[in-house]
């Protein structure tokens, strides 16, 4: 493989990993173009869509273009940091293509930062903390802790089985809200007026797609921004549907 082909291939791999890790479009473009230039390309122009990364590089005499599928838009900020450091090191220390490839392999195959059971429990804890911030009492917060943990577990299991976001999020919201609404109703309260209910499904807030969508709009990557915001709208709508269904079921059973 020529030096230019190496630069193109590695830049595409960096772009794919940034996309998969929750980087907004400007970040993806910036890191692809920087690493391509650091590896010898005189010019590099990246083009990013919601599920593909493409690039054209040139060394003055030759021009090469290629694209790569970037699967889905995931979130892994540890990977994002590792990629940023790789690009910085390549620029500052003149890493070779082989060295960059070796580090990318390590980054791609890095293990989980936190075990899934801890993440589920922490999400339940986050929901319970939201409940306290909204004015819920101890009993309400405990219900949200249980509901949030169960809901997060349901989502994790469904996503692992490649269910679409609508199914995974609606199911997770339904389970979490059912636990909380059921507990409140069992205690003689009204789910519709209890602050704990407002926190029951907040572990599903699509923070990264919303913020990246906004970043894309503010940096004139309108199409990608709209895709991310549409994704956020589907998640919020699905969570609302699950929550409404759980409140309805509990109301019907009372």
């Amino acid at each position, binding site marked *: 493989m020529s030096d230019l082909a190496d630069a193109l291939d590695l830049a595409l791999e960096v772009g794919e990993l940034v996309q998969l890790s929750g980087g907004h479009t400007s970040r993806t473009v910036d890191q692809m173009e920087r690493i391509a230039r650091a590896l010898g390309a005189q010019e590099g122009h990246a083009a990013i869509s919601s599920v593909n990364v493409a690039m054209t590089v040139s060394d003055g005499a030759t021009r090469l273009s290629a694209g790569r599928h970037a699967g889905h838009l995931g979130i892994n900020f540890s990977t994002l940091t590792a990629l940023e450091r790789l690009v910085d090191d390549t620029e500052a220390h003149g890493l070779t293509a082989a060295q960059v490839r070796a580090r990318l392999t390590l980054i791609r195959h890095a293990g989980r930062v936190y075990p899934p059971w801890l993440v589920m429990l922490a999400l339940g804890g986050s929901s319970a903390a939201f409940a306290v911030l909204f004015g819920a009492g101890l009993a309400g917060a405990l219900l949200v802790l249980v509901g949030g943990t169960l809901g997060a577990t349901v989502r994790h299991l469904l996503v692992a089985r490649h269910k679409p976001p609508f199914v995974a999020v609606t199911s997770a919201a339904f389970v979490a809200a059912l636990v909380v609404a059921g507990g409140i109703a069992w205690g003689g309260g009204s789910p519709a007026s209890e602050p704990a209910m407002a926190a029951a499904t907040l572990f599903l807030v699509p923070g990264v797609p*919303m*913020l990246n969508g906004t970043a894309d709009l503010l940096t004139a990557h309108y199409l990608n921004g709209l895709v991310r915001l549409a994704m956020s709208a589907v998640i919020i709508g699905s969570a609302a549907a699950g929550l409404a269904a759980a409140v309805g079921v509990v109301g019907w059973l009372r």
Partner: protein
Amino acid sequence: MSLWAAVAVLGFAMVFSVPRRALPGIALLAVAAHLLRAACLEQGMTLPAASLLAALFVGATAAVVAPRTGEATPIYAFAPVIPLVPGTAMFDTLIGLLALTSGADPAARVDQVAVDATTATLTIIALAVGAIGPTLVLGTRIARLMERTSIDPDG
């Protein structure tokens, strides 16, 4: 009360696979942002305006701290604003919308639903713009300024 924002942010930080070394800083930033918003609300600001200020504080801090610690900026800019999400307004909007179709006097509820929905939407937009804006506008300049400062032996 704002200390609970630290607990609220941890679960999301773990979902985002934030490096463990960054967790204390993120928790601290979340508490500071929550306190700032509470102070702004006490001064009579609206929820969206107070949330914008708090998110700008988070975004500006992230733009300065992330390059200094060698972390990606979203680590400090994204998670700490999550506890500022207007969950109550979002929930009230949903319950209000449901009540519009099932309640006895839907016309009387329309105003409140509109207020809740507008508050929730504007607050979410304020959080997103506040958290992202400083990095997009100032990020590179701050990083360059810090590079120059660290190279200058008298600086």
